[in-house]
């Protein structure tokens, strides 16, 4: 059995009070409680304050490029589907720069768990607006308030093929650990959007802001229609759901690949014989 110490790398460099501390602890607790070890876990980190967890969390990991963690994780999972595979990144990284990978990665139901630190700003680059910020949000890059309406990760994930969609609050580690654990245990594409206060650059969406609006998900919805209506209704009530919102069991990408029935790709036998392939060219 591994311990939280096994997963612990360097001392985090996050600002005191940042929501990332809670997420960092929750991820480690979830992994330990699931009986995983650093050397049975793949993690891909994005670039941002969130992605800086690469040095604080021990695992077989890639600190990838800004926005590119999802396809990287998919490549790892297809190659060795016995490894639990996580993606950890910011909302700017995963929904903005990597938005195309986010919406298309879900379509294959790849068995990866994507944890997004949603702080509505770009933390590492010192406070520009992010895709999840409300219309009118003032930031370094939008001094007059952004003209864009917010990106809706939950709605998109539910409708676009994620088979597990949950939301957590960085200020509540107890329920966050539970949600992350069920996300990792779920076979298929899981999204956990974590509402994360950035104490340095977001003075609007604070701990107090979130606490006033949190709404416990009453039950896990199993149809997209129910899940979507719930999410839309919560938004119109100015509420932020926390818990597991949607879950459906469907075959994962590697389960659907007949080539991987008996082996992982990395352990599959060498098949470098080209004689029979050459026949079609003669």
């Amino acid at each position, binding site marked *: 059995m591994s311990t939280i110490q096994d997963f612990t790398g360097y001392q985090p460099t996050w600002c005191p009070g940042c929501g990332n501390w809670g997420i960092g602890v929750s991820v480690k607790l979830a992994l330990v409680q699931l009986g995983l070890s650093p050397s049975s876990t793949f993690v891909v980190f994005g670039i941002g304050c969130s992605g*800086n967890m690469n040095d604080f969390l021990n695992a077989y990991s890639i600190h990838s490029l800004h926005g590119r963690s999802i396809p990287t994780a998919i*490549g790892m999972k297809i190659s060795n589907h016995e490894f639990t595979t996580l993606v950890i990144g910011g909302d700017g990284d995963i929904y903005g720069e990597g938005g195309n990978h986010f919406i298309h990665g879900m379509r294959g139901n790849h068995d990866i768990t994507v944890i997004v630190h949603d702080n509505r700003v770009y933390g590492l680059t010192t406070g520009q607006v992010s895709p999840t910020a409300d219309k009118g949000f003032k930031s370094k890059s939008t001094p007059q308030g952004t003209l864009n309406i917010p990106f809706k990760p939950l709605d998109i994930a539910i409708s676009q093929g994620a088979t597990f969609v949950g939301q957590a609050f960085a200020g509540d580690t107890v329920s966050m650990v539970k949600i992350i654990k069920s996300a990792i245990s779920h076979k298929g594409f899981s999204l956990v959007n974590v509402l994360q206060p950035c104490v340095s650059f977001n003075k609007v969406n604070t701990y107090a802001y979130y606490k006033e609006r949190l709404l416990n998900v009453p039950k896990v919805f199993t149809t997209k229609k129910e899940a979507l209506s719930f999410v839309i209704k919560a938004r119109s009530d100015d509420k932020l759901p926390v818990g597991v919102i949607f879950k459906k069991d469907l075959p994962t990408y590697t389960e659907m690949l007949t080539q991987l029935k008996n082996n992982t790709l990395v352990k599959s036998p*060498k098949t470098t014989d080209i004689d029979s392939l050459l026949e079609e060219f003669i």
Partner: protein
Amino acid sequence: MNEILWKIGGEAGFGIKKAGLLFSKLLSRLGFSIFNYTEYPSLVKGGLNTFEVAFSDSQKSFLKKDIDVLVCLNEKVFNVSKDYIKPDTRVIFDPLTFKPEGEFIKVACPVSKILDKSGNSAIFSNMIFLGVTLFIFDFPIEKAFSLINDVFKGKSEEVISVNKKMISEGYSWAKENLGEKNRIKLNKVSELKKRAVLTGNDAFALGAVAGNCKLYAAYPMTPASSVLSSLALWQEKVNSVVVHTEDEISAVNMAIGASFAGVRSAVGTSGGGFALMEESISLAGITEMPLVMLLAQRVGPATGMPTWTEQGDLLFSVFAGQGEFPKIVLAPGDVEEMFELSMKAFNLAEIYQTPVIVLSDKFLSESYENIDVSLIKEIKDRVGIDRGKTSETFTKGYLRYKDSQDGISERVIPQKNGVFYQANSYEHLEDCHTTEDPKERIKQVNKRARKIKTYLKKHFSSPKFYGDKDSDIVFVSWGSTKHSILNAMKLLKSSNKKAGFIHFTHMYPLSTNLGSLFMDKNKRYVLVENNSTSQLGKLLRMELGVNIESKLLKYDGRPFLPEEIRDFALKI
């Protein structure tokens, strides 16, 4: 020696390529060497498609200017080919479609009448023309039938028999109406060796399988797309996974993820897609991840001329990716070299744990050659699989980025309960953690750079010299211009002019002691490149301090014909 050029052309959608490929395979089975070149616009229907089959009783065949047999499915083909027709060219056409004028041998086959009589649609006209062709060269029709049986395996009996019937109809018409004098007499060839008819892309795909590439990720882009379809078709047979991703950025990062997990992987694209992949080339550089990339060049900039050829991305690939890191660029000159260098690319990527780019272009990627199956096997055994310092076990105190004399650190494939480590896109310590310490930074930069020295010592191949050592003229070129130049040299020889040829396949990094190759004051060095700025010339100036003034550059989207190079050489 026979050197024949047969050309067929017509509207897209009328089986031009199908007929050309069938004819080529037939020739290959009969014992000829073949070389095919196809031109088509970036359209699915309409527009003009042409397919040229050069064949010869010598070891290697190549394009030439003069056409011996021209098959015209419409008038346009005739118009674009007119300048290459001689008095003894056989021009085969349907007089009910158009009547060509001029001095050449007219073979007026009433194709539409034959079709009407048999109740078949115009898409079978290609087979009738093929039948006429068989008669002209006196090729055994049974051989064509057995080829059809093999190629159409899995298709319905009806499809097979209609195709055969249309070939027979064409053949019979020719037999009754043409007579012996219109035939082209060829030397006897022996069909001893089994040969495969392959494009450069086919050779890359086969090289990937032979090199145990288990994951190929790509987004379709001409002229690289056929690699994606071949590998996708074979994936279950060879236990690999092929992914058509949402974009090229996804493809390259997926390949990098696979590499981390210990799986040999590759991507393939053309210039536009390669541009999108650039940041990740740099990622593979700093994380020291094996990455094989096929860059099949086409005419740029931007969308350019998608289905035409150019060597416009040599410097782009050499300089691809931000920052400084080792990268290997290879440029095979023909199908044989493509097979060998793609296999080698997979080895180099793992040995040096860095990106390796295989440069092709439309001309190499989509032109067919036939090559001895025994030679392919011989290359496969010779190159083999070398994973360098890749290992499945580790010793205590393992450091992923440990400094080393040859610049290469041990790479352990992730195993459960093994030794975890990270691949860090930030500058890192030997133990992978992020660093901004000046000494550690220099250590890692120097370590990575040392891989270049090791490569130059162990795996770099100097350019190959062809031709006469005592010539006054020496062509200098790279990649797919190889056979245009070799054939130009043959032509020059018959005009009593000697020529030499320095052909580069290992483009970058370059060994700096190659400068002496270009120092002979008595020789005239001539750069021959399919681009407008002479990118090899610039590379040689940058890396070797060599300045070659004389240049023959072509950038109209077409490959060099040997005659063009000969004429240029005769003038200087």
